[in-house]
């Protein structure tokens, strides 16, 4: 009983360890605590039922009852008796939770926050696995099988992170499984009684086997890993920008708090774009028919090492924001948008459409920088925020831009925003481009058009990061880069032409899901250039990145697609798009996506460009479980087929019957044929042993083939004459193959095998027969032996290494030195 109690405890702990991969799904660790509670209740119920010597079905019922009580306590519906006794309405509540979880699986994407419904589903799943593992490993003594439900947990993150499967949680889970196996093995070794270790006379001493030590060590490693895991995986404690920021991963990193707190938006951008996983970051709904990009950050501080953002300043957003003044040639339209930031986007800035005039649902700590046009906070961050705002969309006609006057050279804005560290090659190029251009807009257009595909520019994600003078010069010569380079280079060139310019950060329009809702992922992150025009026009966006390479890219009348043959063909969507405000918004046709895959995005890490909803995980998990459950049976039948081919092959023929000494006639079987006959006999015998294991007939390593055959004849196959001769023949063939000069030749082993198998099957009860067909114990036993053998060898090797290291321990070296 102690052994069982111990095994039950290990089964529960192993289940929890195996659940470690779920950490990739959840943002926080609440699920683990709740799962631990429920698993503990299940394990306790199992232990109690075993204490009461309940049969297996009794244990199962006790565990299911424990699971129900635990779930009731953790997820109360409000009507419970004594807080843990469920009432009918509790089950209704559970049903609601389950239904909601199905819904939420589709809506949320990784990593999800502590949503009650998903937590319930997870805890229910882990609790269910705990019950299964306990029944399999303690009740049925098939711990190898317990690996299957444990593996099924792992299939969940595998299904979610298609390419980038987190390895550490799997190691933890595997350790849990190994622990279970080793504990079970130790238990077996104990039941075995005394061991022959070949070590001498004291083997009778009641000592733990080396396998027990292996188990203990593995357990220590497993626990250490489980503790270290949350610390080791950065994504678990910090969000998008913090992880990529050059500051620390502190969730409240403030922009511009000294140098350390500043976010390198470029680094964050390229880091996210190059990630192969797709994470939903923002969902935005607007009543604007063809919005321009959602925007959250600006880098306008051009240093020798490239564009940097500055510390924003401004007033709280819940006060009235300035409304842009009306201008001739500038169409301004007011719209309303609602943004839902996911749990994965974590930064001290809020994405908004330019230019917000009124916000709702945002507290005092959020402030608005009018010149940068960004909403920022030095106290809160964007994670999980939901807010609405009114904004004014400006669309500019090229003629109005052309008419705009340049800023005077002594204007502080111009002084500040046209400064460049200087790059001779760039200045040279700019002089060429703007030669003969009379106004700012023409100059900007000349620069903008320069980055066209005709000029040899191509989109590529696999370029070096950076917007320093050197990087820009490189980009201009290699002509391959992504939005970071395009935006940075254009801003630099425009500045070099004496016109204020900066880099803006935000999202392209991504995937339009329904109505005016856009789902934006890390792959939709984008950077573009903003150029300042005088005469009160202000900052005007130009996106120089090839539109074809960026899903959800938008072009405008003043900055048309350089690749499109006809410039600015307004497909004016009725009243919705005012003059010139054409936005061939978010072309997201399949061929566009294909193009993406061919070009930049797929370089190096062909990640999926689509959102991964949650529900396929569970389907994939279930499928994986089914496949895994089928593996042993498939393996067994493959083995049988292979051996049958062996056995059915033409048996060795006696090459010659030659008279031996003194007239004796001996069949001489030589060379290849003898080897063949030997191998055939071995194959048949192995198959017989596996069949015995499958049908739960004892296999004894201390028995000779003859003794095994006789035992079967005596105990098992008594009635079946065919099987009796069959098993004797198999025994004789194996015996001859092992010990005689010449193997048995010319006998048909396959029919013998078949008759024995038939007799065994006829004798076995139904449960055994089903197990033999679906989960053949022989295969599982073989696997378990392999695993425990490997682990034992690993531990031995570890011990040797330790021994060797100890030899160099300074203490020993000192002790070994002769005293003076």
């Amino acid at each position, binding site marked *: 009983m102690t052994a069982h109690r111990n095994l039950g405890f290990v089964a529960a702990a192993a289940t929890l360890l195996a659940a470690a991969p779920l950490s990739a799904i959840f943002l926080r660790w609440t699920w683990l605590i709740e799962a631990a509670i429920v698993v503990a209740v299940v394990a306790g119920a199992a232990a109690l039922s075993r204490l009461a010597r309940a049969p297996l079905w009794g244990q199962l019922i006790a565990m299911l009852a424990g699971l129900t009580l635990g779930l009731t306590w953790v997820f109360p519906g409000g009507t419970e008796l004594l807080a843990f006794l469920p009432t009918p309405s509790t089950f209704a509540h559970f049903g609601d939770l389950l239904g909601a979880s199905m819904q939420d699986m589709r809506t949320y994407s990784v990593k999800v926050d502590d949503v009650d419904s998903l937590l319930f589903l997870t805890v229910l799943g882990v609790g269910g696995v705990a019950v299964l593992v306990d029944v399999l490993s303690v009740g049925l*003594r098939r711990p190898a099988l317990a690996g299957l439900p444990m593996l099924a947990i792992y299939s969940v993150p595998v299904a979610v992170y298609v390419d980038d499967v987190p390895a550490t949680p799997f190691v933890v889970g595997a350790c849990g499984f190994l622990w279970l196996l080793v504990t079970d*093995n130790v238990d*077996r*070794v*104990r*039941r*075995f*009684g*005394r061991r*022959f270790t*070949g*070590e*001498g*006379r*004291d*083997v*009778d001493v*009641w000592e733990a086997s080396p396998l027990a030590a292996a188990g203990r060590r593995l357990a220590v490693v497993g626990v250490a890993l489980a503790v270290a895991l949350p610390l080791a995986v950065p994504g678990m404690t910090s969000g998008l920008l913090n992880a990529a920021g050059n500051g620390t991963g502190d969730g409240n990193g403030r922009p511009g708090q000294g140098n350390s707190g500043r976010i390198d938006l470029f680094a964050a951008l390229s880091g996210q774009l190059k990630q192969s996983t797709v994470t939903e970051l923002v969902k935005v709904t607007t009543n604007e028919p063809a919005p321009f990009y959602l925007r959250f950050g600006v880098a306008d501080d051009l240093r020798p090492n490239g564009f940097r953002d500055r510390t924003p300043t401004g007033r709280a957003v819940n006060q009235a924001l300035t409304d842009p003044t009306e201008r001739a040639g500038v169409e301004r339209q007011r719209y309303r948008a609602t943004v839902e930031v996911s749990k994965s986007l974590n930064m001290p800035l809020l994405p908004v459409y330019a230019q917000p005039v009124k916000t709702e649902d945002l507290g005092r700590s959020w402030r608005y920088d009018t010149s940068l046009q960004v909403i920022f906070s030095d106290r809160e961050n964007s994670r999980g925020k939901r807010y609405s705002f009114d904004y004014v969309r400006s669309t500019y006609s090229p003629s109005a831009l052309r008419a705009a006057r340049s800023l005077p050279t002594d204007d502080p804005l111009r002084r500040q925003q046209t400064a460049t560290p200087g790059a001779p090659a760039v200045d040279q190029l700019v002089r060429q481009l703007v030669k003969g251009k009379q106004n700012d807009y023409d100059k900007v257009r000349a620069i903008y058009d320069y980055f066209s595909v005709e000029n040899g520019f191509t989109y590529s994600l696999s370029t070096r990061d950076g917007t320093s003078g050197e990087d820009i010069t490189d980009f201009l010569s290699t002509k391959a880069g992504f939005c970071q380079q395009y935006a940075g280079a254009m801003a630099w060139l425009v500045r070099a032409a004496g016109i204020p310019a900066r880099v803006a950060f935000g999202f392209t329009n991504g995937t339009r899901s329904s109505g005016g809702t856009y789902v934006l992922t890390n792959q939709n992150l984008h950077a573009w250039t903003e150029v300042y025009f005088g005469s009160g026009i202000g900052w005007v966006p130009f996106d120089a990145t090839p539109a074809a390479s960026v899903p959800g890219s938008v072009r405008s009348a003043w900055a048309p697609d350089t690749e499109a043959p006809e410039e600015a063909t307004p497909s004016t969507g009725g009243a919705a798009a005012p003059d010139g405000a054409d936005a061939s918004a978010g072309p997201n046709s399949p061929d566009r996506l294909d193009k993406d895959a061919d070009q930049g995005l797929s370089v190096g890490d062909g990640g999926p460009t689509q959102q991964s909803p949650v529900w396929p995980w569970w389907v994939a998990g279930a499928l994986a479980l089914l496949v895994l459950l089928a593996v042993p049976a498939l393996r067994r039948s493959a083995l049988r087929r292979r051996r049958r081919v062996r056995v059915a092959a033409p048996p060795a023929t006696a090459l010659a019957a030659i008279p*031996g*000494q*003194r*007239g*004796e006639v001996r069949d001489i079987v030589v060379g290849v044929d003898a080897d063949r006959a030997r191998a055939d006999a*071995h194959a048949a015998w192995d198959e017989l*042993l596996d069949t015995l*294991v499958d049908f*739960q007939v*004892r*296999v*004894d*390593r*201390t*028995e*000779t083939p*003859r*003794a095994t055959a006789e035992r079967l004849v005596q105990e098992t196959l008594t009635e079946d004459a065919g099987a009796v001769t069959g098993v004797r023949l198999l025994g004789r063939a194996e*015996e*001859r193959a*092992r*010990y*005689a*000069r010449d193997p048995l030749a010319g006998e048909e082993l396959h029919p013998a095998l078949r008759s024995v198998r038939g007799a065994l099957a006829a004798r076995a009860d139904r449960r055994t027969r089903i197990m033999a067909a679906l989960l053949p*114990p*022989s295969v599982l*036993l*073989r696997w378990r*032996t*392999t695993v425990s053998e490997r682990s034992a060898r690993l531990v031995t090797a570890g011990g040797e290494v330790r021994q060797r290291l100890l030899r160099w321990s300074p203490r020993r070296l000192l002790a070994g030195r002769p005293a003076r």
Partner: protein
Amino acid sequence: MTQQTWDEVGGLLPHDEFRAASEAIVANIEQVIEGKTATVRLALAVLLAEGHLLIEDVPGVGKTKLAKALARSIDCSVRRIQFTPDLLPSDVTGVSVYNQETHDFEFRPGAVFANLVVGDEINRASPKTQSALLECMEERQVTVDGVTYQLQTPFMVIATQNPIEMEGTYPLPEAQRDRFTARIAMGYPDAGAELAMLDGHGATDPLTELRPVSDAATVRQLIGHVRQVHVADAVKQYAIDLVTATREAPDLRLGASPRATLQLLRTARAVAALEGRDYVLPDDLQALAVPVLAHRIIPTADAQLARRTTDAIVAELVHRLPLPNDRKRSPYDTRPGGTGRGPYEPRRP
């Protein structure tokens, strides 16, 4: 008294010939000893394995009878020594006496100069006399006054003794016991055999009517045949594992000697040949482990206190020792199912 060299023993006999010759001997002995086929065959196997046989049992179960019947069945020189407390070593080996006529010392051979030597009640003689057998049993020679005399082939000592607890016995020294290939017990005959014994032996002793059915030359041929029996490497390994297990068994103070390994394999060859096989099986070794090993080992004081006989200890070792597998490692180390259905019931400390 011609000296037969070992090279003259033949090779493999045809099966029929071997079978006929050996069965004849067994059948002949069985005319005298009722219901003891296995013991009789084992005795013959020891002869064919060129070993010596120790028959140990309580008085009156036919020990002497068996020894004499075996001796009579083979037409060769047979000597019988009745070991008594006053028996001298020279009676066993021989003695140099001064010949008045030739004025020279002359060797008068002792009882061991024969093909079959029946030593009855061997543990009634003093250890000194018992030790006289040491040299001749192992080396098949006798050295008296510095002169070495070779013994004949076949040469076999069949000794009988009472269990050592019996009165008036000197236990055989270990070295002496080790020289016996096998120790067998007669055991009481079963009811049917005892009845047959009463019917057949009531009036006359059938031993007197026993005629030899074989001779020394034939026995030499049989021995030659036995030597050719094939022993696979796995079987050799198993033999080594067995004796090693006795050396490492916690219950044993003294394990089996390398001589034991040799004799175990030889006897196994003979048993295999008697069963009509030309190869040895681990089954043969398992069957022979107790007769060949048990009398050589010494249990620890604890085991003696626990009244564990050496027979039981060896039998348990055999029961536990896994077969060596010359092929790839088999997964059947532990019992599948593992619910203690195997022969190894869980033992509590």
